[in-house]
Protein backbone atom coordinates (compact mmCIF):
# COMPACT_ATOMS: atom_id res chain seq x y z
CA UNK A 1 0.00 0.00 0.00
CA UNK A 2 1.35 3.40 -0.98
CA UNK A 3 0.58 6.86 0.36
CA UNK A 4 0.61 9.96 -1.82
CA UNK A 5 0.49 13.33 -0.04
CA UNK A 6 -0.24 16.56 -1.89
CA UNK A 7 1.48 19.65 -0.44
CA UNK A 8 2.37 23.17 -1.56
CA UNK A 9 3.97 25.36 1.11
CA UNK A 10 2.03 28.41 -0.03
CA UNK A 11 -1.71 28.17 0.36
CA UNK A 12 -4.14 28.41 -2.51
CA UNK A 13 -1.92 26.89 -5.19
CA UNK A 14 -4.55 24.29 -6.06
CA UNK A 15 -3.79 21.26 -3.84
CA UNK A 16 -7.44 20.42 -3.26
CA UNK A 17 -8.53 20.90 -6.87
CA UNK A 18 -5.69 18.63 -8.00
CA UNK A 19 -6.41 16.03 -5.31
CA UNK A 20 -10.12 15.92 -6.19
CA UNK A 21 -9.27 15.46 -9.86
CA UNK A 22 -6.87 12.64 -8.95
CA UNK A 23 -9.66 10.90 -7.03
CA UNK A 24 -11.90 11.14 -10.08
CA UNK A 25 -9.19 9.95 -12.47
CA UNK A 26 -8.24 7.06 -10.18
CA UNK A 27 -11.86 5.92 -10.13
CA UNK A 28 -11.84 5.68 -13.90
CA UNK A 29 -8.62 3.70 -14.15
CA UNK A 30 -7.21 0.34 -13.34
CA UNK A 31 -7.34 1.01 -9.58
CA UNK A 32 -10.99 1.99 -9.27
CA UNK A 33 -12.22 0.62 -5.90
CA UNK A 34 -8.59 0.13 -4.91
CA UNK A 35 -7.87 3.47 -3.26
CA UNK A 36 -8.92 5.75 -0.43
CA UNK A 37 -8.90 9.54 -0.11
CA UNK A 38 -8.06 11.48 3.05
CA UNK A 39 -8.31 15.22 3.70
CA UNK A 40 -5.47 16.24 5.99
CA UNK A 41 -6.16 19.97 5.80
CA UNK A 42 -8.32 19.81 8.90
CA UNK A 43 -8.65 23.53 9.63
CA UNK A 44 -9.68 24.37 6.08
CA UNK A 45 -11.22 21.10 4.95
CA UNK A 46 -12.45 21.72 1.44
CA UNK A 47 -12.22 18.36 -0.27
CA UNK A 48 -15.73 17.45 0.90
CA UNK A 49 -17.08 20.39 -1.09
CA UNK A 50 -16.16 18.62 -4.34
CA UNK A 51 -16.34 14.97 -3.32
CA UNK A 52 -19.91 15.15 -1.96
CA UNK A 53 -19.49 12.64 0.85
CA UNK A 54 -22.28 10.59 2.39
CA UNK A 55 -21.50 10.39 6.07
CA UNK A 56 -20.99 6.91 7.54
CA UNK A 57 -19.37 7.65 10.88
CA UNK A 58 -18.86 10.73 12.98
CA UNK A 59 -16.74 10.99 16.09
CA UNK A 60 -15.80 13.78 18.44
CA UNK A 61 -12.13 14.63 18.54
CA UNK A 62 -10.83 15.50 21.95
CA UNK A 63 -7.80 17.67 21.81
CA UNK A 64 -5.89 19.29 24.60
CA UNK A 65 -7.17 20.36 27.96
CA UNK A 66 -7.83 23.82 29.34
CA UNK A 67 -7.52 25.10 32.87
CA UNK A 68 -10.55 26.37 34.77
CA UNK A 69 -10.34 28.33 38.02
CA UNK A 70 -12.84 27.62 40.77
CA UNK A 71 -13.85 31.12 41.88
CA UNK A 72 -15.25 29.83 45.20
CA UNK A 73 -11.89 28.67 46.48
CA UNK A 74 -9.55 31.06 44.62
CA UNK A 75 -7.40 33.06 47.06
CA UNK A 76 -6.67 35.78 44.47
CA UNK A 77 -2.92 35.43 44.98
CA UNK A 78 -2.13 35.76 41.27
CA UNK A 79 0.42 32.95 41.29
CA UNK A 80 -1.30 31.36 38.27
CA UNK A 81 -0.83 34.52 36.27
CA UNK A 82 2.82 34.71 37.26
CA UNK A 83 3.64 31.19 36.09
CA UNK A 84 1.58 31.22 32.88
CA UNK A 85 3.83 31.71 29.86
CA UNK A 86 0.91 31.90 27.45
CA UNK A 87 -0.73 35.06 28.81
CA UNK A 88 -3.82 32.98 29.40
CA UNK A 89 -4.79 34.22 32.86
CA UNK A 90 -6.91 37.37 32.77
CA UNK A 91 -7.40 39.56 35.81
CA UNK A 92 -10.56 41.62 35.56
CA UNK A 93 -12.83 43.10 38.21
CA UNK A 94 -10.81 41.48 40.97
CA UNK A 95 -11.13 37.96 39.57
CA UNK A 96 -8.68 35.64 37.87
CA UNK A 97 -10.01 33.67 34.94
CA UNK A 98 -8.49 31.51 32.22
CA UNK A 99 -8.79 32.61 28.61
CA UNK A 100 -9.54 29.21 27.02
CA UNK A 101 -8.34 30.40 23.62
CA UNK A 102 -4.93 31.35 24.93
CA UNK A 103 -4.57 28.41 27.33
CA UNK A 104 -1.97 25.94 26.09
CA UNK A 105 -3.12 23.17 28.41
CA UNK A 106 0.23 22.88 30.18
CA UNK A 107 -1.32 22.77 33.68
CA UNK A 108 1.59 24.71 35.21
CA UNK A 109 -0.98 26.85 37.05
CA UNK A 110 -2.74 23.76 38.41
CA UNK A 111 0.41 22.61 40.18
CA UNK A 112 1.34 26.07 41.48
CA UNK A 113 -2.07 27.06 42.85
CA UNK A 114 -1.79 27.11 46.65
CA UNK A 115 -5.49 26.47 47.19
CA UNK A 116 -5.90 23.75 44.54
CA UNK A 117 -8.51 25.85 42.85
CA UNK A 118 -7.55 25.05 39.26
CA UNK A 119 -8.46 21.92 37.36
CA UNK A 120 -7.99 20.80 33.78
CA UNK A 121 -10.93 19.94 31.55
CA UNK A 122 -10.78 18.05 28.30
CA UNK A 123 -12.06 19.90 25.28
CA UNK A 124 -13.77 18.64 22.17
CA UNK A 125 -11.84 20.50 19.48
CA UNK A 126 -13.18 18.96 16.32
CA UNK A 127 -14.94 16.18 14.54
CA UNK A 128 -13.64 13.22 12.62
CA UNK A 129 -15.63 11.66 9.79
CA UNK A 130 -15.66 8.56 7.67
CA UNK A 131 -17.72 8.90 4.51
CA UNK A 132 -18.55 7.38 1.21
CA UNK A 133 -16.97 9.88 -1.12
CA UNK A 134 -18.06 10.19 -4.68
CA UNK A 135 -15.24 7.96 -5.90
CA UNK A 136 -13.90 6.17 -2.86
CA UNK A 137 -14.09 6.06 0.92
CA UNK A 138 -13.21 9.48 2.30
CA UNK A 139 -11.61 10.19 5.68
CA UNK A 140 -11.94 13.77 6.76
CA UNK A 141 -12.27 16.02 9.78
CA UNK A 142 -13.14 19.47 10.94
CA UNK A 143 -11.00 21.18 13.52
CA UNK A 144 -13.15 23.78 15.24
CA UNK A 145 -12.03 27.35 14.51
CA UNK A 146 -9.08 28.48 16.57
CA UNK A 147 -8.25 25.10 18.05
CA UNK A 148 -4.98 23.41 18.77
CA UNK A 149 -3.73 19.93 17.97
CA UNK A 150 -4.30 19.90 14.24
CA UNK A 151 -1.30 17.57 13.90
CA UNK A 152 -2.98 14.91 16.05
CA UNK A 153 -6.20 15.15 14.08
CA UNK A 154 -4.26 14.82 10.82
CA UNK A 155 -2.57 11.73 12.22
CA UNK A 156 -5.95 10.23 13.17
CA UNK A 157 -7.41 10.87 9.70
CA UNK A 158 -4.40 9.31 8.01
CA UNK A 159 -4.16 6.34 10.36
CA UNK A 160 -7.78 5.38 9.89
CA UNK A 161 -7.54 5.73 6.11
CA UNK A 162 -4.41 3.60 6.12
CA UNK A 163 -6.00 0.88 8.26
CA UNK A 164 -8.94 0.51 5.91
CA UNK A 165 -6.60 0.45 2.92
CA UNK A 166 -4.52 -2.31 4.49
CA UNK A 167 -7.57 -4.29 5.60
CA UNK A 168 -9.08 -4.28 2.16
CA UNK A 169 -5.84 -4.67 0.20
CA UNK A 170 -6.25 -1.32 -1.43
CA UNK A 171 -3.31 -0.10 -3.50
CA UNK A 172 -2.97 3.52 -2.44
CA UNK A 173 -4.22 6.41 -0.31
CA UNK A 174 -4.34 9.96 -1.69
CA UNK A 175 -3.92 12.61 1.02
CA UNK A 176 -4.78 16.28 0.52
CA UNK A 177 -2.32 18.13 2.73
CA UNK A 178 -2.36 21.46 4.55
CA UNK A 179 -0.39 24.57 3.56
CA UNK A 180 2.74 25.69 5.40
CA UNK A 181 5.56 23.58 6.79
CA UNK A 182 4.57 23.15 10.45
CA UNK A 183 2.99 20.47 12.61
CA UNK A 184 0.05 19.42 10.41
CA UNK A 185 2.36 19.24 7.38
CA UNK A 186 4.84 17.12 9.30
CA UNK A 187 2.00 14.83 10.42
CA UNK A 188 0.73 14.61 6.85
CA UNK A 189 4.20 13.81 5.49
CA UNK A 190 5.01 11.18 8.08
CA UNK A 191 4.68 7.72 6.56
CA UNK A 192 4.18 9.03 3.02
CA UNK A 193 5.78 7.19 0.12
CA UNK A 194 5.59 10.12 -2.25
CA UNK A 195 4.83 13.84 -1.93
CA UNK A 196 3.50 15.81 -4.87
CA UNK A 197 4.16 19.50 -4.48
CA UNK A 198 1.70 21.71 -6.34
CA UNK A 199 3.85 24.75 -6.96
CA UNK A 200 2.75 28.11 -8.25
CA UNK A 201 5.18 30.05 -10.46
CA UNK A 202 4.87 33.26 -8.47
CA UNK A 203 7.60 34.86 -6.43
CA UNK A 204 5.79 33.72 -3.25
CA UNK A 205 5.00 30.27 -4.62
CA UNK A 206 8.62 29.59 -5.55
CA UNK A 207 9.85 30.80 -2.15
CA UNK A 208 7.40 28.58 -0.29
CA UNK A 209 8.01 25.58 -2.56
CA UNK A 210 11.65 25.65 -1.47
CA UNK A 211 10.61 25.60 2.17
CA UNK A 212 8.21 22.69 1.81
CA UNK A 213 10.73 20.75 -0.33
CA UNK A 214 13.33 21.14 2.41
CA UNK A 215 10.78 19.99 4.97
CA UNK A 216 9.83 16.90 2.99
CA UNK A 217 13.49 16.06 2.38
CA UNK A 218 14.25 16.62 6.07
CA UNK A 219 11.87 13.76 6.81
CA UNK A 220 13.36 11.59 4.06
CA UNK A 221 10.34 11.41 1.78
CA UNK A 222 10.61 11.55 -2.01
CA UNK A 223 9.06 14.66 -3.60
CA UNK A 224 7.98 15.43 -7.14
CA UNK A 225 6.66 18.75 -8.42
CA UNK A 226 3.91 19.94 -10.74
CA UNK A 227 3.32 23.59 -11.62
CA UNK A 228 -0.17 25.05 -11.45
CA UNK A 229 -1.26 28.29 -13.17
CA UNK A 230 1.99 27.84 -15.06
CA UNK A 231 1.31 30.35 -17.82
CA UNK A 232 0.58 33.26 -15.45
CA UNK A 233 4.30 33.79 -14.99
CA UNK A 234 6.30 31.56 -17.36
CA UNK A 235 9.62 32.87 -16.03
CA UNK A 236 8.70 31.50 -12.62
CA UNK A 237 7.69 28.16 -14.14
CA UNK A 238 11.03 27.94 -15.94
CA UNK A 239 12.81 28.77 -12.70
CA UNK A 240 10.99 25.96 -10.88
CA UNK A 241 11.80 23.45 -13.60
CA UNK A 242 15.46 24.31 -13.79
CA UNK A 243 15.77 24.28 -10.01
CA UNK A 244 14.18 20.82 -9.91
CA UNK A 245 16.42 19.56 -12.70
CA UNK A 246 19.59 20.74 -10.96
CA UNK A 247 18.44 19.17 -7.69
CA UNK A 248 17.30 15.86 -9.14
CA UNK A 249 13.61 16.41 -8.45
CA UNK A 250 11.20 15.07 -11.03
CA UNK A 251 8.74 17.58 -12.49
CA UNK A 252 5.56 16.03 -13.78
CA UNK A 253 3.96 18.77 -15.79
CA UNK A 254 2.39 22.19 -16.01
CA UNK A 255 -1.27 23.02 -15.48
CA UNK A 256 -2.41 26.18 -17.27
CA UNK A 257 -4.46 28.88 -15.56
CA UNK A 258 -8.01 27.87 -16.38
CA UNK A 259 -11.19 29.32 -14.88
CA UNK A 260 -12.91 26.01 -15.58
CA UNK A 261 -11.31 24.90 -12.29
CA UNK A 262 -13.33 27.55 -10.43
CA UNK A 263 -16.52 26.71 -12.33
CA UNK A 264 -16.08 23.06 -11.39
CA UNK A 265 -15.63 24.05 -7.73
CA UNK A 266 -18.84 26.08 -7.85
CA UNK A 267 -20.62 23.03 -9.26
CA UNK A 268 -19.09 20.86 -6.55
CA UNK A 269 -17.21 18.62 -8.93
CA UNK A 270 -13.59 17.80 -9.74
CA UNK A 271 -12.56 19.68 -12.88
CA UNK A 272 -11.75 16.47 -14.74
CA UNK A 273 -15.32 15.25 -14.21
CA UNK A 274 -16.92 18.64 -14.86
CA UNK A 275 -15.19 19.30 -18.14
CA UNK A 276 -12.71 16.59 -19.20
CA UNK A 277 -11.64 18.50 -22.30
CA UNK A 278 -10.72 21.72 -20.45
CA UNK A 279 -7.02 22.63 -20.66
CA UNK A 280 -6.54 22.15 -16.91
CA UNK A 281 -8.28 18.75 -17.00
CA UNK A 282 -6.11 17.50 -19.84
CA UNK A 283 -2.96 18.62 -18.04
CA UNK A 284 -4.01 17.05 -14.74
CA UNK A 285 -4.79 13.75 -16.51
CA UNK A 286 -1.27 13.61 -17.91
CA UNK A 287 0.18 14.51 -14.52
CA UNK A 288 -1.89 11.84 -12.77
CA UNK A 289 -0.49 9.15 -15.07
CA UNK A 290 3.05 10.20 -14.15
CA UNK A 291 2.30 10.53 -10.45
CA UNK A 292 0.70 7.09 -10.37
CA UNK A 293 3.71 5.56 -12.04
CA UNK A 294 6.08 7.16 -9.52
CA UNK A 295 3.83 6.20 -6.63
CA UNK A 296 3.65 2.53 -7.58
CA UNK A 297 7.30 2.24 -8.59
CA UNK A 298 8.84 -0.68 -6.75
CA UNK A 299 5.45 -1.84 -5.49
CA UNK A 300 4.82 -5.46 -6.45
Amino acid sequence: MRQLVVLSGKGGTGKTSVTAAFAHLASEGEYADKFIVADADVDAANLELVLQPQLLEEQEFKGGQVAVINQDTCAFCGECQDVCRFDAIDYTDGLYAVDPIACDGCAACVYQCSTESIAMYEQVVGKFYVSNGRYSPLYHANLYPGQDNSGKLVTLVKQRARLQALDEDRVFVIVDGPPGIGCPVISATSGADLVLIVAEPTISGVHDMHRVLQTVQHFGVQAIVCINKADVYPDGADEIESFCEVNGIQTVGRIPFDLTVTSAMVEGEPVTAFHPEAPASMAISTIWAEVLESLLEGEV
Partner: protein
Amino acid sequence: MQIVTASGKGGTGKTTVATSLALIAAEQDSVRFLDCDVEAPNAGLFLEPVLDARKEVGILIPQVDEETCTYCGKCAEVCQFHAIAVVGKKTLVFPELCHGCGSCTLVCPENAITEHLNVMGVLEGGSTPEQIDFAQGVMNVGEPMAVPIIRELKKWIPDSSSEIEIWDAPPGASCPVVETIRGADFALLVTEPTPFGLHDLKQVAEIVKELDIPAGVVINRDGIGDSAVEAYCEDSALPILIRIPMERRIAEAIASGKLLLEAAPEYRPDFEAMLKTIVAEVSA
Protein backbone atom coordinates in the same frame (compact mmCIF):
# COMPACT_ATOMS: atom_id res chain seq x y z
CA MET B 1 -3.73 50.63 16.01
CA GLN B 2 -3.30 47.04 14.95
CA ILE B 3 -4.85 45.69 11.77
CA VAL B 4 -4.59 41.99 10.99
CA THR B 5 -5.12 40.36 7.58
CA ALA B 6 -6.45 36.80 7.66
CA SER B 7 -8.32 34.55 5.26
CA GLY B 8 -8.77 30.93 6.25
CA LYS B 9 -8.10 29.68 2.76
CA GLY B 10 -4.57 30.15 1.53
CA GLY B 11 -3.68 32.12 -1.56
CA THR B 12 -6.63 34.50 -1.44
CA GLY B 13 -4.41 37.58 -1.34
CA LYS B 14 -3.75 38.34 2.34
CA THR B 15 -0.21 39.48 1.65
CA THR B 16 -1.27 41.34 -1.50
CA VAL B 17 -3.78 43.38 0.48
CA ALA B 18 -1.60 43.80 3.58
CA THR B 19 1.41 45.11 1.66
CA SER B 20 -0.57 47.63 -0.37
CA LEU B 21 -2.42 48.78 2.73
CA ALA B 22 0.95 49.32 4.42
CA LEU B 23 2.10 51.39 1.48
CA ILE B 24 -0.94 53.66 1.67
CA ALA B 25 -0.78 53.96 5.45
CA ALA B 26 2.93 54.86 5.32
CA GLU B 27 2.14 57.99 3.32
CA GLN B 28 0.43 59.48 6.38
CA ASP B 29 1.56 57.63 9.46
CA SER B 30 4.44 55.65 10.81
CA VAL B 31 3.80 52.01 9.98
CA ARG B 32 5.06 48.75 11.34
CA PHE B 33 4.52 45.57 9.34
CA LEU B 34 4.73 42.10 10.92
CA ASP B 35 4.77 39.03 8.69
CA CYS B 36 3.29 36.45 11.06
CA ASP B 37 3.11 33.69 8.43
CA VAL B 38 6.32 32.25 9.84
CA GLU B 39 5.98 28.97 7.93
CA ALA B 40 5.81 30.70 4.56
CA PRO B 41 6.72 34.39 4.98
CA ASN B 42 6.31 36.26 1.71
CA ALA B 43 5.59 39.91 2.49
CA GLY B 44 9.30 40.75 2.43
CA LEU B 45 9.46 39.65 -1.20
CA PHE B 46 7.15 42.54 -2.06
CA LEU B 47 8.13 45.21 0.47
CA GLU B 48 11.85 44.56 0.00
CA PRO B 49 13.11 45.67 3.40
CA VAL B 50 16.78 45.91 4.26
CA LEU B 51 16.99 43.46 7.16
CA ASP B 52 19.59 44.54 9.68
CA ALA B 53 18.30 43.10 12.95
CA ARG B 54 18.16 39.43 13.77
CA LYS B 55 17.21 37.42 16.83
CA GLU B 56 17.03 33.69 17.37
CA VAL B 57 13.83 32.64 19.09
CA GLY B 58 12.19 29.54 20.39
CA ILE B 59 11.06 28.17 23.69
CA LEU B 60 12.83 27.48 26.97
CA ILE B 61 13.30 23.76 27.40
CA PRO B 62 14.51 21.93 30.50
CA GLN B 63 17.99 20.69 31.10
CA VAL B 64 18.39 18.25 33.98
CA ASP B 65 21.47 18.26 36.16
CA GLU B 66 22.21 14.56 36.63
CA GLU B 67 24.26 15.30 39.76
CA THR B 68 21.36 16.73 41.74
CA CYS B 69 18.44 14.85 40.13
CA THR B 70 17.01 12.18 42.43
CA TYR B 71 14.81 10.64 39.70
CA CYS B 72 11.70 11.33 41.76
CA GLY B 73 9.68 11.72 38.59
CA LYS B 74 7.76 14.81 39.70
CA CYS B 75 8.72 16.59 36.45
CA ALA B 76 7.33 13.77 34.30
CA GLU B 77 4.19 13.68 36.41
CA VAL B 78 3.29 17.32 35.75
CA CYS B 79 4.31 17.44 32.08
CA GLN B 80 1.15 17.32 29.98
CA PHE B 81 3.08 16.70 26.77
CA HIS B 82 5.22 13.69 27.76
CA ALA B 83 8.28 15.76 27.00
CA ILE B 84 10.24 14.60 30.04
CA ALA B 85 10.51 11.07 31.37
CA VAL B 86 12.44 9.24 34.06
CA VAL B 87 13.78 5.91 32.89
CA GLY B 88 15.74 4.10 35.59
CA LYS B 89 18.60 6.38 36.60
CA LYS B 90 18.14 8.80 33.74
CA THR B 91 15.85 11.75 33.11
CA LEU B 92 15.21 12.20 29.41
CA VAL B 93 13.98 15.39 27.71
CA PHE B 94 12.25 15.30 24.32
CA PRO B 95 12.63 18.85 22.96
CA GLU B 96 10.24 18.33 20.03
CA LEU B 97 7.38 17.56 22.43
CA CYS B 98 8.13 20.36 24.91
CA HIS B 99 5.86 23.42 24.92
CA GLY B 100 8.22 25.44 27.10
CA CYS B 101 5.72 26.00 29.90
CA GLY B 102 8.31 25.69 32.68
CA SER B 103 6.10 23.52 34.88
CA CYS B 104 8.80 20.86 35.40
CA THR B 105 11.31 23.48 36.51
CA LEU B 106 8.83 24.91 39.00
CA VAL B 107 7.97 21.58 40.62
CA CYS B 108 11.46 20.04 40.82
CA PRO B 109 12.11 19.68 44.58
CA GLU B 110 15.90 19.54 44.04
CA ASN B 111 16.10 22.54 41.72
CA ALA B 112 17.87 20.21 39.33
CA ILE B 113 16.29 21.70 36.23
CA THR B 114 17.53 24.76 34.43
CA GLU B 115 16.15 26.04 31.17
CA HIS B 116 17.83 26.94 27.94
CA LEU B 117 16.60 28.32 24.66
CA ASN B 118 15.68 25.75 22.04
CA VAL B 119 15.97 27.75 18.82
CA MET B 120 13.01 27.22 16.49
CA GLY B 121 13.43 30.13 14.13
CA VAL B 122 14.60 33.69 13.71
CA LEU B 123 13.09 37.13 13.80
CA GLU B 124 14.39 39.55 11.22
CA GLY B 125 13.74 43.26 11.16
CA GLY B 126 14.57 46.31 9.13
CA SER B 127 13.15 49.10 7.09
CA THR B 128 11.62 49.30 3.63
CA PRO B 129 12.32 52.04 1.07
CA GLU B 130 9.07 53.71 2.22
CA GLN B 131 10.36 53.67 5.82
CA ILE B 132 7.95 50.98 6.89
CA ASP B 133 9.30 49.35 10.01
CA PHE B 134 9.30 45.70 8.91
CA ALA B 135 9.73 42.46 10.84
CA GLN B 136 9.16 38.82 10.01
CA GLY B 137 9.45 35.48 11.74
CA VAL B 138 11.02 32.59 9.87
CA MET B 139 10.44 29.15 11.33
CA ASN B 140 13.25 26.63 10.89
CA VAL B 141 12.53 23.79 8.50
CA GLY B 142 11.47 20.66 10.36
CA GLU B 143 10.10 22.52 13.38
CA PRO B 144 6.48 21.75 14.16
CA MET B 145 5.40 24.75 16.24
CA ALA B 146 4.82 28.16 14.70
CA VAL B 147 3.06 29.71 17.68
CA PRO B 148 6.13 30.46 19.85
CA ILE B 149 7.76 32.29 16.94
CA ILE B 150 4.65 34.36 16.28
CA ARG B 151 4.41 35.16 19.99
CA GLU B 152 8.02 36.36 20.08
CA LEU B 153 7.58 38.34 16.87
CA LYS B 154 4.61 40.23 18.24
CA LYS B 155 6.48 41.28 21.35
CA TRP B 156 9.86 41.82 19.73
CA ILE B 157 9.61 45.59 19.93
CA PRO B 158 6.70 46.05 22.30
CA ASP B 159 6.94 49.81 22.60
CA SER B 160 7.06 50.45 18.89
CA SER B 161 5.97 54.02 18.34
CA SER B 162 4.28 53.18 15.03
CA GLU B 163 0.80 54.58 14.70
CA ILE B 164 -0.40 51.75 12.52
CA GLU B 165 0.66 48.14 12.72
CA ILE B 166 -0.27 45.62 10.06
CA TRP B 167 -0.05 41.94 10.94
CA ASP B 168 -0.17 39.44 8.09
CA ALA B 169 -1.58 36.11 9.36
CA PRO B 170 -0.91 32.58 8.11
CA PRO B 171 -3.67 30.64 6.31
CA GLY B 172 -5.93 28.20 8.11
CA ALA B 173 -7.94 28.65 11.27
CA SER B 174 -5.96 26.90 13.97
CA CYS B 175 -3.64 28.05 16.74
CA PRO B 176 -1.09 30.06 14.69
CA VAL B 177 -3.94 32.14 13.27
CA VAL B 178 -5.40 32.78 16.71
CA GLU B 179 -1.99 33.75 18.07
CA THR B 180 -1.64 36.29 15.25
CA ILE B 181 -5.14 37.76 15.54
CA ARG B 182 -5.15 38.12 19.35
CA GLY B 183 -4.93 41.74 20.41
CA ALA B 184 -5.70 43.24 17.01
CA ASP B 185 -8.09 46.19 16.77
CA PHE B 186 -9.46 45.27 13.36
CA ALA B 187 -9.45 42.15 11.20
CA LEU B 188 -9.37 42.42 7.45
CA LEU B 189 -10.65 39.12 6.06
CA VAL B 190 -9.42 38.55 2.53
CA THR B 191 -11.40 36.00 0.56
CA GLU B 192 -12.31 34.90 -2.92
CA PRO B 193 -15.88 34.35 -4.10
CA THR B 194 -15.63 30.56 -4.40
CA PRO B 195 -16.98 27.68 -2.30
CA PHE B 196 -13.50 27.06 -0.84
CA GLY B 197 -13.04 30.75 -0.09
CA LEU B 198 -16.40 30.92 1.65
CA HIS B 199 -15.96 27.74 3.67
CA ASP B 200 -12.66 28.94 5.11
CA LEU B 201 -13.81 32.56 5.53
CA LYS B 202 -16.52 31.28 7.86
CA GLN B 203 -13.91 29.51 9.99
CA VAL B 204 -11.79 32.61 10.44
CA ALA B 205 -14.82 34.89 10.86
CA GLU B 206 -15.82 32.71 13.79
CA ILE B 207 -12.43 33.22 15.46
CA VAL B 208 -12.66 36.97 14.99
CA LYS B 209 -16.15 36.97 16.47
CA GLU B 210 -15.02 34.89 19.43
CA LEU B 211 -12.20 37.35 20.07
CA ASP B 212 -14.63 40.24 19.69
CA ILE B 213 -12.65 42.05 17.02
CA PRO B 214 -14.43 44.22 14.45
CA ALA B 215 -13.93 42.95 10.91
CA GLY B 216 -14.40 43.76 7.26
CA VAL B 217 -14.02 41.73 4.10
CA VAL B 218 -11.95 42.15 0.95
CA ILE B 219 -13.23 40.16 -2.01
CA ASN B 220 -10.31 39.35 -4.24
CA ARG B 221 -10.64 37.86 -7.74
CA ASP B 222 -14.12 39.33 -7.84
CA GLY B 223 -16.12 38.02 -10.77
CA ILE B 224 -15.07 34.39 -10.59
CA GLY B 225 -17.08 31.79 -8.71
CA ASP B 226 -20.50 32.66 -7.33
CA SER B 227 -22.28 35.15 -5.08
CA ALA B 228 -22.41 33.03 -1.91
CA VAL B 229 -19.61 34.99 -0.18
CA GLU B 230 -21.55 38.19 -0.71
CA ALA B 231 -24.72 36.68 0.71
CA TYR B 232 -22.81 35.38 3.72
CA CYS B 233 -21.26 38.80 4.39
CA GLU B 234 -24.67 40.41 4.26
CA ASP B 235 -26.19 37.83 6.62
CA SER B 236 -23.30 38.17 9.04
CA ALA B 237 -23.16 41.97 8.93
CA LEU B 238 -19.60 41.86 7.63
CA PRO B 239 -18.99 44.95 5.48
CA ILE B 240 -17.31 44.37 2.13
CA LEU B 241 -14.60 47.04 2.03
CA ILE B 242 -13.00 46.46 -1.36
CA ARG B 243 -13.51 44.26 -4.37
CA ILE B 244 -10.50 43.52 -6.51
CA PRO B 245 -11.55 41.96 -9.80
CA MET B 246 -9.97 38.90 -11.36
CA GLU B 247 -7.66 40.38 -13.95
CA ARG B 248 -4.88 38.51 -15.58
CA ARG B 249 -2.57 41.54 -15.67
CA ILE B 250 -2.87 41.88 -11.87
CA ALA B 251 -2.17 38.19 -11.34
CA GLU B 252 0.86 38.40 -13.63
CA ALA B 253 2.28 41.48 -11.93
CA ILE B 254 1.90 40.04 -8.44
CA ALA B 255 3.44 36.77 -9.62
CA SER B 256 6.56 38.70 -10.61
CA GLY B 257 6.82 40.41 -7.23
CA LYS B 258 5.06 43.72 -7.86
CA LEU B 259 2.79 45.27 -5.26
CA LEU B 260 -0.89 45.44 -6.16
CA LEU B 261 -0.89 49.23 -6.13
CA GLU B 262 2.16 49.31 -8.41
CA ALA B 263 0.41 47.05 -10.89
CA ALA B 264 -3.03 48.61 -10.57
CA PRO B 265 -2.71 52.16 -9.17
CA GLU B 266 -6.39 52.77 -9.94
CA TYR B 267 -7.22 50.93 -6.69
CA ARG B 268 -5.38 53.53 -4.63
CA PRO B 269 -8.58 55.49 -3.78
CA ASP B 270 -10.22 52.25 -2.65
CA PHE B 271 -7.33 51.47 -0.33
CA GLU B 272 -7.34 55.03 1.02
CA ALA B 273 -11.06 54.80 1.69
CA MET B 274 -10.67 51.39 3.31
CA LEU B 275 -7.96 52.65 5.64
CA LYS B 276 -10.16 55.61 6.60
CA THR B 277 -13.08 53.31 7.31
CA ILE B 278 -10.94 51.08 9.50
CA VAL B 279 -9.43 53.99 11.42
CA ALA B 280 -12.88 55.49 11.98
CA GLU B 281 -14.30 52.14 13.11
CA VAL B 282 -11.47 51.54 15.56
CA SER B 283 -11.46 55.08 16.92
CA ALA B 284 -15.23 55.11 17.39
